[in-house]
């Protein structure tokens, strides 16, 4: 059974948290420096969902840093999952759905690694993953749920859950084990140098992930002053003391979207889909070569995607504020 399936003793969770430097301090660093905070074999939770607010720049840095044996968890896993498997960075994915997106069909890369048992794919229902993070965020060992009963999906993870009759009503409940990732990678529209983060639009599971994780790496479209944060304290979604690192990376989700900033780069996503439509693994590795290993910097990665594609994605992204 994997470590994150087991619930850590409460006193261990508390110790890990209390040992962190939770004082109000600056923590701005480079993608490369942030990547060094991730150790091989750790459980890394990824913020956003499918094509939205994927912390792609941080994933790019982890792949370039040649991390190994990471367990990845995410609400729904898209192209970043392919890349983390094909690069050898991850061999274990915990998620509710894994493929580029409905319109592009089933991921052949995911199929290659999972069908050949080269990687483990633990499937949970979407709400169950969310409730596992939430239990972790609340400092609870489990969260009860009325989902995943009766199905083979529930059966398949039965060694990681408990079924119990509610002591108040006698009703059957699934007890979902808390998920406290070693790290959370979250991309936000803006945060300050301390890590106080504002999140626009869809929040997905990011707040629970941030509070459940033992360390949080924030990438952000821009860093704003603490004064700005303090002018609108009810807009802060992640508190500074949960955050270990802040990295400013404009267009840090490309070719995925960042709410209100840019929509998915559809041209780039179709190109990726084409590259993995034949020999998927070879196509994915070539994509890694062209976009992950060859570029010297994130801006160079973006220029390979192309200015026109980017401007179009940004125009569409900002359009949510046009109405």
């Amino acid at each position: 059974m994997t470590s994150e399936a087991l619930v850590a003793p409460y006193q261990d969770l508390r110790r890990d948290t209390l040992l962190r430097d939770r004082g109000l301090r600056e923590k701005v660093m480079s993608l490369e420096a942030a990547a060094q905070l991730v150790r091989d074999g750790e459980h890394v939770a990824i913020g956003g969902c499918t094509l939205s607010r994927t912390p792609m720049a941080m994933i790019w840095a982890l792949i370039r840093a040649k991390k190994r044996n990471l367990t990845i968890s995410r609400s729904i896993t898209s192209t970043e999952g392919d890349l983390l498997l094909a690069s050898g960075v991850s061999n274990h994915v915990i998620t509710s759905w894994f493929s580029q997106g409905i319109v592009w069909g089933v991921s052949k890369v995911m199929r290659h690694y999972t069908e050949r048992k080269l990687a483990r794919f633990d499937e949970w229902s979407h709400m169950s993953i969310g409730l596992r993070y939430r239990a972790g965020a609340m400092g609870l060992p489990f969260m009860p749920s009325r989902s995943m009963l009766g199905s083979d999906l529930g059966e398949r993870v039965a060694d990681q859950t408990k079924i119990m009759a509610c002591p108040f009503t006698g009703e059957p409940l699934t007890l979902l084990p808390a998920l406290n990732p070693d790290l959370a990678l979250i991309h936000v529209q803006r945060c300050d140098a301390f890590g106080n983060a504002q999140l626009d639009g869809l929040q997905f599971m990011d707040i629970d992930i941030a509070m459940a994780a033992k360390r949080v790496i924030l990438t952000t479209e821009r860093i704003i002053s603490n004064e700005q944060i303090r002018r609108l304290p009810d807009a802060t979604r992640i508190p500074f003391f949960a955050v270990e690192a802040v990295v400013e990376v404009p267009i840090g989700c490309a070719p995925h979207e960042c709410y209100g900033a840019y929509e998915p780069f559809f041209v780039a996503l179709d190109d990726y889909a084409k590259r993995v439509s034949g020999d998927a693994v070879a196509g994915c590795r070539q994509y890694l070569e062209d976009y992950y290993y060859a570029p010297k910097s994130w801006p160079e990665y973006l220029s390979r995607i192309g200015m026109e594609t980017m401007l179009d994605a940004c125009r569409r992204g900002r359009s949510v504020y046009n109405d």
Partner: protein
Amino acid sequence: MTEPAASYTASELLAVMASRLLRDGQIVFAGVGVPLLAATLAQRNHAPHLTILFEGGTIGPFIVPGELPPSTNEQRCTRRANMVLPITDVLLLLQRGYVDVGFMGGAQIDRFGNLNSSFIGQADNPKIRLPGSGGGNDISSLTDMIVAMKHEKRRFVEKVDFITSPGWINGGGTRAERGLPQGGMWRVVTDLAIMGFDAESREMTVLGLNPGVSREQVEDNTGFRLLFEARLEKIEPPRQQELAVLRQLDPERLYTA
């Protein structure tokens, strides 16, 4: 199977038939593709107060024609929405009991309405590893379901290889016995027919045939013995106005090709 001779695609037919099942004032948890198109069509047609929920965390959005979302989790799902909220919280609305109908597509279904979107073949050694449940298991566990899918023998099987999203399990009272007294598979809409489930045995039962479709055609494209209602509903073909709305919503035929 052969396309019913008419000026609409199978997906358009699915969307139209499914939209007619939705009632005004309902709260519908919808997937992208045909479910979203059907729910939006219902809103513009006969159910102006119907509310769409998206798994990504949206309550009551308006879909901008020609800007259909690639999944339920992008900003296109939030245009002019009444509220956006975290994924876990929008899914919890199902558990709290706020949702009337869950509505999604399906890869494989069996005679008791169980859905499989996880494995073709043995789970431990699958022929095909499918993408998985997403919110499917939660929606199917916690509310009444409508599924829209193409009617093919390989998709309509005696028993699914793997129950990702529970229908009536083994029929009869087995769903409730397994801890799911609420919800269950209500309607299956295909390009050939509309099906429900027998109140007792919970076996899939044909309620009506789509225009120009024969009973044999449905049986030939189904991998198990279907029940048929004694008196089948007469199903009106898609109206021009319904098709017009769909084509305005999806001009590039992203989901209605």
